[in-house]
């Protein structure tokens, strides 16, 4: 779509960003995506609103709707909160991360990144063992390593990528990766040995240890680093061709070292870059053609 037409796609539509948790990438990315389609955005964050005074999610949602919001982008510390908000407001709600549940727009931008990089790499290097047609992930193994238990990014990717044919390997210590994780969907397996997992992967996705969600869990960080850190030596030895990804925020020196994060195999900034386009698509879909018609109809129906 040409840029001028795209810039008017959601012209003057009202999009609310409702953030109960801090965010850099997701928030900015959704905001820029909405603005680049012509929408007006408003940010409500928990710490500078009536949420601090005890206003419920339902009432916050109804307030935003009464102010004209036609779509709410929600980040929330409780799993399932977007379902509640959608039920109570009847508005399209985009999940920008809910508790330990899902972060679907992140998984979609990760998918976009994998398809682009592996598809491109095919012409230059033999990264993928089978041809990638930029639409499926058949024959591709993606290892997700780290704090799987608390990670909504891990869940969304583990549920999404096998739908396109990928094998997802989850890797981490039992405290952060219970056996039951392999049962949440098809195409998911567990490999505790990070190096073995690396050796069979075309993509390796690293996750941050979520100190805020550990809830009393004791973790020996030195031992964690020794077994699960993605460092230059490990990468060269076991996965010299693999694509390296991280949803951010990274803790350099913990789950990943700087030479890897900034190295040629890294797609980390590319992930962020793809986020804007993916979220533009999500917003266009949420407020798309049918929504637009309803919107115009209500405008017309409104008394002058």
């Amino acid at each position: 779509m040409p840029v001028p037409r795209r810039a008017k796609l959601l012209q003057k539509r009202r999009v609310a960003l409702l953030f109960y948790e801090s965010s850099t990438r997701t928030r900015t990315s959704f905001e820029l995506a909405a603005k680049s389609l012509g929408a007006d955005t408003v940010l409500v964050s928990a710490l500078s609103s009536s949420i601090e005074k005890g206003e419920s999610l339902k009432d916050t949602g109804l307030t935003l709707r009464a102010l004209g919001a036609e779509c709410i982008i929600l980040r929330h510390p409780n799993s399932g909160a977007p379902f509640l908000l959608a039920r109570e407001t009847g508005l399209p709600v985009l999940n920008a991360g809910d508790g330990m549940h899902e972060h679907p727009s992140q998984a979609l931008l990760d998918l976009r990144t994998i398809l682009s990089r592996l598809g491109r790499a095919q012409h230059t290097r033999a990264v993928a063992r089978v041809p990638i047609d930029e639409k499926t992930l058949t024959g591709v193994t993606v290892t997700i390593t780290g704090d799987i238990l608390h990670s909504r990014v891990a869940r969304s990717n583990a549920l999404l990528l096998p739908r396109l044919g990928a094998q997802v390997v989850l890797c981490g210590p039992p405290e952060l990766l219970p056996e039951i994780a392999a049962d949440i969907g098809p195409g998911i397996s567990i490999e505790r040995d990070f190096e073995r997992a690396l050796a069979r992967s075309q993509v390796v996705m690293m996750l941050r240890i979520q100190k805020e969600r550990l809830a009393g869990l004791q973790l020996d960080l030195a031992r964690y680093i020794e077994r699960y850190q993605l460092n230059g030596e490990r990468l060269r030895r076991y996965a010299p061709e693999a694509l390296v990804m991280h949803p951010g925020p990274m803790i350099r020196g913990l789950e990943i070292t700087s030479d890897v994060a900034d190295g040629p195999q890294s797609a980390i900034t590319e992930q962020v870059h793809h986020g804007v386009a993916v979220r533009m698509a999500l917003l266009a879909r949420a407020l798309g053609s049918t929504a637009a018609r309803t919107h115009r109809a209500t405008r017309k129906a409104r008394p002058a």
Partner: protein
Amino acid sequence: MSAILIRGGRLIDPAAGIDATRDLLLEQGLVAAVGAPGALDAAARERHATALDATGRVVAPGFIDIHVHLREPGQAYKETIASGTRAAAAGGFTTVCAMPNTTPVNDSPEITRWMQAPERNAAIRVLPIAAATRGSMGEQLTDYAALKAAGAVAISDDGKPILGDAIMRDALALGARVGLPVIQHAENTDCTHGASMNLGALSFRLGLRGMSVEAESSIVERDIALLATMRDTPAHLHVAHLSTAAALDAVRRAKAEGLRVTCEVAPHHFALTEQAIGDYDTHAKMNPPLRSEQDRLALIAGLADGTVDAIATDHAPHAPHEKEQEFERTPNGITGLETALGLSLQTLHHEHNIPLARIVELLTSGPARVLHLAQCGSLIKGRPADLVIFSPDETWTYATSHSLSKNSPFLGWDLPGRVYATIFGGWVLDPAKSAGA
């Protein structure tokens, strides 16, 4: 109060060993006579009795629910004793036992008496269950003898477990001395912090912290081990809202060893599994949580084979604003008094072929035996005229509730077992008349 003749119904009175067509004559609030069809007509005429035709319907002792939360004192915005007992009557119950997790906690003879005072305007019999420890804090035992004298029929810290070994042993011992069963909410809260559903693949998938099966079964096993050291006393352990196959097996083994252990199961645990949570439906959040299909089927087997002693609803009303919250923040529990019979008939009788008489037993003489309620649960001559008349096959839609709260996942369901009349102490109750509520 005029005499009533109930004619032509199928009387199911498991305690009396009756499952046959019988007429009943009720007089002065008591069962005056039970007889073959027509045999009581003359006596009824003599007394100018009102006739109630129960042909094609089941006549049973009024149901007994040994686990309800009536929310008074202190949380009348959720439920009152008046409203909760009207919901109970609508569901065919004539006796309910009210748990002590009120505000303040019912840990005193004063509150125990207050709950039974005529001013509460109960539609049916309310028997309080008093707190096992002061404030249900799990530290200091309450005065069981005084609580029993005030009318308490059991003790429990329901909502919270009695965790410490020593305090649980003391509770069982004191309960044994005064003749009160100890009802345990079996949950090892040390490993359920922040949990809001059953632990398993689904809880992982939904990103919710889960309660393990062991969190329940380990406490049941611990309590049974304590009881085994007290064989020379009449100590009686009753396991509330048992929800797992593992805990049920522990109870089954203990019963085989001759220990005084009883247990109850809630209708939602045999009618639903954790799948009912769907898109975080807070009406599928309770404690203990909805479990796996394997657990559900084990509970049904236990209800059929006699391991389970009673069906108890754990009726737990909550206001809309409390249930319209994030799943993890919303309080546990659903209402259950109006749907217990329907779910029992649908799941246990129609789907799993458990005989009607066994279901009636689980709702009447079973719970009466658990709490030694000598006057309730049977319709032999001289007992209170507490009974229910229902049609086991006729379906109805659960569309409105007499409870102050509407937090039920079963609203809108079509259920079998329409209740035609609930009679308490010889009075035909009309739950639509919410007297003074």
